[in-house]
């Protein structure tokens, strides 16, 4: 064990440090996620916590097993795998079988992080990659939205499906998400239930107000670049307002678009991943506008009701190009 604060530090520049360390940042993000998790618990019962725990366990196990750095398990201490696990859990539906969530955690860390050399090197957001993997592998299970639980300790039957089985849904009814209702029945959900989270959906994509507050906290602490969520939300709102003005019957109003589905969660917690988003301020604006544009495109014209995950992944893929295009000019050239 080396001492935490050595007497003499020999180092190369830069000498001016920010004081932020990775575990500190991760603790802040986890702290901001706690209220979101609590809201998920309140809305969906014990299932919410179990699904999140399973996803986190998958992340931790994969990181422990496959991270090449030694001693084994050292990389777990920076808590980034826990953050990935919680985020993955929050984008899964409440009745999701736990073994699938565990597998998703494995895919998130294995394919999204360890493969690229570990923390700070992943070109894609690991949690979203895990969800995209699950969406491709289990398209039925991941779009089965159980209704909100009736108590804090309610469980959904499909949670406990044995590995490699779907599980028979024992919930008498399923609840369509507001976006699915919009897409397939052209019904707009009212703003108030959307904002407090009184609707069906993934665990973390229900209560918009709490997510916004968590985002404000993180932005105030300078954990992430505030430009990204701002430009995502603004571009989504503006674009959907334009479409709403063109054909109000067919396209939903902008506030519905902003508060429904995973947009807030994605904009605050996923797109702002400092590794997979652009490094320049101008790039951040472009990145956010791109995410917003793709979200509107996929939601309004695509085959799926929700597109935040794909929008962010696609913009992650474009991030190296954005970084390259927005390099500031070297002074004097």
């Amino acid at each position: 064990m080396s001492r935490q604060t050595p007497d003499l530090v020999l180092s190369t520049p830069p000498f001016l440090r920010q004081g932020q360390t990775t575990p500190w940042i991760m603790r802040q993000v986890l702290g901001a996620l706690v209220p979101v998790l609590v809201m998920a618990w309140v809305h969906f019962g014990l299932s919410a916590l179990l699904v999140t725990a399973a996803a986190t366990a998958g992340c931790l196990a994969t990181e422990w097993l496959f991270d090449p750095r030694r001693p084994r398990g050292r990389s777990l201490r920076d808590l980034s795998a826990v953050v990935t696990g919680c985020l993955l859990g929050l984008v899964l539906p409440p009745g999701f079988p736990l073994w699938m969530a565990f597998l998703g955690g494995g895919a998130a860390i294995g394919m999204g992080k360890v493969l690229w050399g570990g923390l700070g090197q992943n070109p894609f957001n690991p949690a979203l990659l895990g969800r995209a993997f699950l969406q491709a592998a289990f398209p039925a299970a991941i779009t089965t939205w159980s209704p909100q639980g009736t108590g804090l300790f309610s469980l959904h039957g499909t949670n406990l499906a044995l590995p490699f089985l779907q599980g028979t849904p024992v919930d008498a009814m399923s609840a369509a998400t507001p976006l699915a209702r919009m897409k397939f029945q052209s019904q707009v959900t009212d703003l108030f239930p959307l904002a407090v989270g009184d609707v069906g959906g993934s665990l973390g994509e229900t209560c918009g107000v709490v997510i916004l507050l968590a985002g404000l906290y993180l932005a105030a602490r300078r954990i992430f670049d505030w430009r990204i969520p701002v430009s995502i939300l603004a571009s989504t709102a503006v674009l959907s307002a334009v479409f709403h003005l063109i054909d109000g019957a067919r396209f939903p109003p902008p506030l519905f678009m902003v508060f429904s589905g995973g947009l807030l969660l994605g904009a605050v917690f996923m797109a702002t991943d400092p590794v997979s988003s652009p490094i320049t301020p101008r790039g951040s604006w472009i990145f956010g506008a791109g995410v917003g544009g793709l979200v509107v495109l996929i939601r309004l014209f695509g085959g799926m009701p929700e597109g935040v995950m794909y929008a962010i992944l696609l913009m992650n893929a474009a991030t190296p190009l954005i970084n390259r295009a927005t390099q500031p000019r070297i002074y004097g050239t």
Partner: protein
Amino acid sequence: MGDLIWIFVAAMLVNNFTLAYFLGLCPFLGVSGRLDTALRLGLANIFVMVITSSCAWLLNTFVLPHAPYLRLIAFIIVVASTVQFVEMVIRKMSPALFRALGIFLPLITTNCAILGLALFQTNRGYDFLEGLVFALGAGGGLTLALVVMAGLREETRVLDIPKVVQGMALYMILAGILSMAFMGFAGLFSSGGS
């Protein structure tokens, strides 16, 4: 007009030749190491695809009704020789354009994406204009995939990729991830198209 836009978007994003149909993977994996070469290969691809589409339409309209069994051979030979011929013309007329595209033109002509384009166009019964738009969309989609892939691959050079996946293995996985991200476009405009 709406039909044409739909054909373009479908060929470029929804049914992206590389990321949804897995055609043209050889140039996609082979020449995506650097951004500028990837971009030039993509442009050359668009160029060849447009030629292919026009050739296929000509063959389908005037030749193949008399000899339908020649379809595959006719497509390959006519496309390859036309591209070679055009390459010679470009070399003579515009050395700058030749330097930009020339090396890639003969490389692409025998690619599965090119034959795929001709066959898809025939099966779907596109007329001349639709075929051109289809070729532009498909070529644009390939260019997009190539450029994004090249950007990511240049980035991977500075990462500590574990030894087991270094090189082609990582690029295959990367292609898979990109393909997964492109699944988001599934069904785009499908309700407004026809």
